[in-house]
């Protein structure tokens, strides 16, 4: 009898002893928060993680679709209800893609904030001072770009410069205005520029990448002299030049910053234009412009009519094609606009920059133009075809105040998107943008 009873007693006792250890199960495919960024290799990995988010989240398909549809030259083949809201400039705060933009932007920012906080504390001897600066500079650059996009999408957003450790960290912070957000972007870019090496790596941020982005931001801030100066700095470097004929291939001197993809992290824009199952199509108006030898020239490859008379957008040939964030052509056009707009306009310089872009696509150069407004219109139209399938035109027309005239988007309150309703729900201190 004792012998029989002994078995359960032993088993009970054994299980009690081993319980604590038994219940301590470590994850296999992820690491705990504490040991993430602590040496050279983990710091490098974290920075790559931030780029991945920039490439796959920030510039995902919803961002491209919404900005292209808002720009008026591209139409949706899905004809989803939200596409109607977009093209009618009638967004509601509960439309799903808005929170996608918001979340993705801050997700990337949180990644960079972790890097900015933790990389300076690393004591690993393998992490050289130069590499440490480079990694930090890249984080500052990615943060700047993410805030810039949040600022131009939503206008009034919160600025956080420290990583999230608990949810409570983020409650009740007042939103900054769009101009305050742009100021923060400039501050980060200045930091990035000072930290980054002067090498040329086209799919990562380097010193001149920061300068180039700053040129764009200055244009948004209407600081034209500064924009021109930054564009000058980048264009003076022989590694950045226009490639003839017009093509959007990876790794060319055209590329100032491009985002890279692979078979397991595909370019989200590809599916939008993929010929077998397109979601987007260039409208006839832009197709005709691109295919007009006096307007589009070499850029006609962006819209090709197939046998069925459908227009096929030609921006991403494969699902691993690079996605350009900044091109040399943009810097020429930024400088052209800055030159035309600065306090003492340099119209000749502006037209000369414009012609660089035109001639590259096989168009004739424009003779000198004496009227500033005409030059600006020429630049606007050039940007329209040059960036026909890139998410640019909507922001351009809002920035220059021409959206009402060109797009018949007459309510200026709709030039920034509504703060996502779900965000206001999660943090009631957020204030909805006026007009929504």
């Amino acid at each position: 009898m004792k012998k029989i009873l002994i078995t359960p007693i032993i088993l009970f006792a054994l299980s009690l002893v081993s319980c604590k250890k038994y219940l301590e199960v470590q994850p296999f495919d992820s690491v705990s928060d504490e040991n993430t960024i602590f040496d050279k290799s983990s710091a490098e990995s974290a920075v790559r993680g931030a780029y991945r988010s920039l490439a796959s989240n920030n510039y995902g398909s919803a961002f491209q679709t919404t900005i292209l549809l808002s720009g008026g030259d591209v139409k949706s083949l899905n004809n989803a209800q939200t596409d109607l809201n977009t093209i009618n400039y009638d967004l509601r705060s509960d439309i799903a893609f808005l929170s996608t933009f918001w979340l993705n932007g801050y997700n990337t920012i949180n990644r960079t904030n972790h890097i900015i906080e933790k990389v300076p504390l690393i004591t690993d001897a393998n992490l050289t001072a130069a590499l440490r600066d480079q990694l930090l500079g890249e984080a500052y650059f990615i943060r700047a770009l993410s805030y810039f996009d949040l600022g131009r999408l939503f206008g009034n957003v919160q600025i956080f410069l420290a990583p999230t450790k608990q949810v409570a960290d983020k409650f009740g912070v007042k939103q900054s205005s769009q101009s305050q957000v742009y100021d923060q972007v400039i501050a980060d870019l200045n930091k990035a520029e000072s930290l980054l090496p002067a090498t040329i790596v086209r799919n990562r941020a380097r010193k001149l990448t920061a300068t180039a982005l700053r040129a764009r931001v200055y244009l948004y801030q209407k600081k034209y002299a500064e924009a021109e100066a930054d564009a000058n700095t980048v264009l003076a470097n022989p590694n950045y030049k226009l490639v003839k004929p017009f093509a959007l291939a990876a790794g060319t001197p055209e590329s100032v910053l491009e985002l890279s993809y692979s078979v397991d992290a595909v370019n989200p824009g590809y599916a939008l234009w993929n010929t077998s199952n397109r979601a987007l199509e260039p409208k006839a108006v832009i197709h005709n412009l691109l295919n007009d030898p006096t307007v589009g020239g070499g850029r006609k490859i962006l819209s090709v009519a197939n046998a069925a008379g459908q227009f096929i957008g030609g921006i991403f040939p494969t699902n691993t094609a690079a996605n350009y964030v900044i091109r040399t052509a943009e810097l020429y056009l930024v400088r052209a606009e800055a030159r035309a707009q600065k306090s003492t306009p340099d119209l000749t310089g502006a037209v000369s920059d414009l012609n660089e872009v035109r001639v590259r696509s096989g168009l004739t150069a424009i003779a000198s133009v004496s009227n500033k407004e005409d030059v600006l219109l020429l630049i606007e139209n050039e940007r329209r075809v040059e960036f026909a399938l890139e998410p640019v035109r909507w922001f351009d027309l809002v920035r220059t105040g021409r959206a009402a005239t060109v797009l018949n988007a007459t309510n200026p309150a709709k030039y920034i998107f509504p703060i996502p309703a779900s965000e206001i729900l999660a943090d009631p201190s957020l204030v909805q943008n006026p007009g929504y």
Partner: protein
Amino acid sequence: MNRSVYRPIYFIGFAMVFCLGLHSTSFAQTANVFLAGKVIDEKLKTALEGATIHIKGTTHEVISDKKGEFKFITGQRVPVVYIVSYVGYTTREIPVDNYNHVEIRLTESDAKLNDDVVLVGYATQNRKSVVGAITKIKAQETKHIPVASFDAQLQGKAAGVQINTFSGTPGESVKVQVRGTASINASNDPLYVIDGVFVNNNSLATIDLGSKKTSPLADINPADIESIEVLKDASAIAIYGSRGANGVVLVTTKRGEYNSPKTKYTLDVSNGWQKADAGRLWKLTTGPEHATIVNEQWINSGIDRPSLNQTYANRPFRPVSEVINGVPGRGNPEDQQTYDRLSRVFRTAKIKNYDFDVLGGSEKIRYNVGVGYTNQEGILKPARFERSSAKFNFDAKLSRKITFSSSNGVYRSFRQQVRGGAGQQAGHLLAALHHPTYLPIFNADGTPARGSIYENIDNLTNTEITNISTKSLRYIGNQSVEFDIAPGLKFKTSVGMDYNNYHEREFFADQTIIGGAPNPPGYRNDVLTTYTVFQNEQLLSFTKAINKVHNITALLGNSIQEVNVNIVAAKGQGFPNNSFQQISAASVRTSSQSQSKSTLASFFGRLNYNYDNKYFLEASLRADGSSKFGANNRWGYFPAAGFAWRAKQESFLENVKQISELKFRTSVGLAGNQNGINDYASRGLWAGNGQYPDDLVNGQKPGIAPFQLENPNLKWEKTTTYNAGLDLGLFKNRITINLDAYYKYTTDALLYLPVPGSTGYSSSLANAGEVSNKGIELGINSTNIKTSSFEWTTSFNIASNVNRAEKLISPITFEAREYRRTQVGAPLGSFWLYKQLYVDPKTGDAVFDDVDKDGKLTQADRQLLGNLIPKFFGGLTNTLSYKGFDLNILFTYQYGNDVYNFNKYILEGGGTRDASRSILASQLSRWQKPGDITNTPRVTSVGNNYNIEQNSRYLEDGSFVRLKAVTLNYTLPAKLIAKAGLNKVSVYLLGTNLWIATKYTGADPESSGSAGQNLDGLDTATPPQPIGVQAGARISF
């Protein structure tokens, strides 16, 4: 003494001496006498050969002969009690007080609803002494209903258990909820325990099935099941601790019988057909109608917003010759053709089912061997579910004190799958239903044509071109040894295992969207998931009766459980041609692997006491430690107590003949829920999936990114349940009534709190909500008519549950479009919509309820306008028996729940979706001219008429009454078959889903596009449950 006790042989000897001694004092031994009788089948009045007749209190037993006759030559004197048993029949105790020939009638055990023995957690109890709310279902009643998994077969059979079949595709998942929805984000599925093994019931599907899931319970052959118990109240579920809160479903498979006179073989064969109810399928506009609506919308939009530059002149459906901007017209509406795709994707599906069962036993062993094969086609091509199963249950009395039991089931399921539900590129039903009818199925050159976003329907239904399939191999087994340590004291130790090997395979040939240009040609994806549950359990039980009135039962146990999941996936693109389907032949190959593990350690105990079978007390406690939870809250404790009073035992009811049973039950207790949450839910985690190159030359390098916020305080969701019940039997139990009322309050609800997106996370798992459920369940069983040849019984159940979110930090919405929302004061996951009041007869514009009266339609105007929870639901079963005929009719019903008709939202889009989606015929009732009274607004892409996704116009009443199953069974006369050496032969006809009454305009009110929690209730391109007819035969020999 010590020596003699632990040597079994001495112990047995002692017991025998003791017994004999006892008998010799009771009965004086004198000359032998004859005791004789006959054993017959109660209903068929046929002789039962091989029944065992045992005289109670003796070792004397005999077996009935061919004519059912038996005879004892014994020294016993009347009165005696016979214990009569026969395989498949309910054992009876018959008191005999004279020496006359007696006729003993046995009833088939599977024909009886309330068996006397009920399985409770870790033990069995006599129904009379059960304190908890437990429903027992005999699997025989439902096992032929062709839905693959046994849980789906239970619809309408158990009060308070809501079961909805999401789609008509066999082997897909089913929604089962016991007593309402207690959890917001953790799973609401009950816990499933099969022969003591805690089995996996989470779908292992990883590939895109159009938001559908597969049911792991479909692996199990319903024919192997003996009975199913659903444990509902605290007193029943608390013993399952941290996993019991959603109810527990205990499944017992068939076992053999000791001393079985002969081995019983049963063969059950059936064949059947199923098809969709054509009258309920969607009606689409014709090509000309579609074109007319699109043109009308085009022109109206142009009027509403001139900058769109949309006029009659440039309308899309204009003569082909009118070329504008290089684009020719699509032809006038009247020139359009109509192409029917639905008839190409639906079919009459065949069902085949074979089960063979062997049951037997000797004095020392008993066994049951069952093999089964099912092949069931889906009505949606090319879906098919095929299952082969083998079941082996074996018990052996190794000695008088040691019994070994083994339960084993080996299952192989094959699923030819479809993406029914969401999923544009390869949605099988989307491509048929949502494809505009004016677009041809074939191009002019005869090749399959595609729409703008859909695959060609013939490419999808041809498994040479699109092949999505899964093979699941599964073993569920439990091995145990039980020791009789001393009278009433038992110890049992067991090892159980549930091994799932789930192999998914997708292939898309190079002419498909997914596998075709400009992608590299061909697409193949292979995923192997292994999911293993390993458990070890010790039970010590003790029973003692003191002075015959104090009955005590105690149970003490512990268990450990480990769940391991490993997923390996490989994908290939770029094949030389369609003949090459091995990933190694692909030019682009990617792979991934992931692994996780969780552990659970538990201690539990239960004490039952009853006084004179009149007053019953039950108390239990379980302690669970789980690796899933935060270091600060790893252990949880779940107590429960119950009390029952059998008033019928009291003297004042003794003479009330009408009342044959009256029992009051009440219980209170705590149970937990940890199901459906991530294995590492409490930790702050970074994931290694953020790869990015360092430059243009050297390709991707690994990257990391944060993906989960830490919550060291994460703990169980806890549900306190109060239950009060009544069991009433009237007129010798001709009518039995079971009534239960309950109140469940869940605290620390596990939920994904919406956190500000500015944190970089979209949500964070926390214990942050409280939910209540209260309800009433009523079950009535009645034998309406009973004569010697005719019997009519009715079984009815109804349940009502009121669900309410009691406390939340902020409202929670689900899915990007936020159709459903949980907020305080309302049922969980209510539909959150803009309310369309009417269509203005003057303008044709939809008028919405402007809740905040600000003149604009903003999110603040959304309202909670209904939910998935029925006001009441249940089932009605009528059984009529006449001689060899049995007719069983089952109705199921549900009242007061809503369904969002998502197909209608997409397909009644006012022509704004142009060539990307078909248009429902109901769109034709649109407003066209002032004075039109309609609910369907003027077609335009401008304004709110068709731009509101969450429009209440598409929310519909999902109430229904369904004739779920009608079975006609005929048992051939025994005389006829005895010549053929057979024991019993019956033939049956089964009709399923023959009739439905519902106001819902979609194909099936139970359909749901997604099987995900909080995402169901939206009916998207889902095949309805089919009408079916099956014919079968069951032969025993």
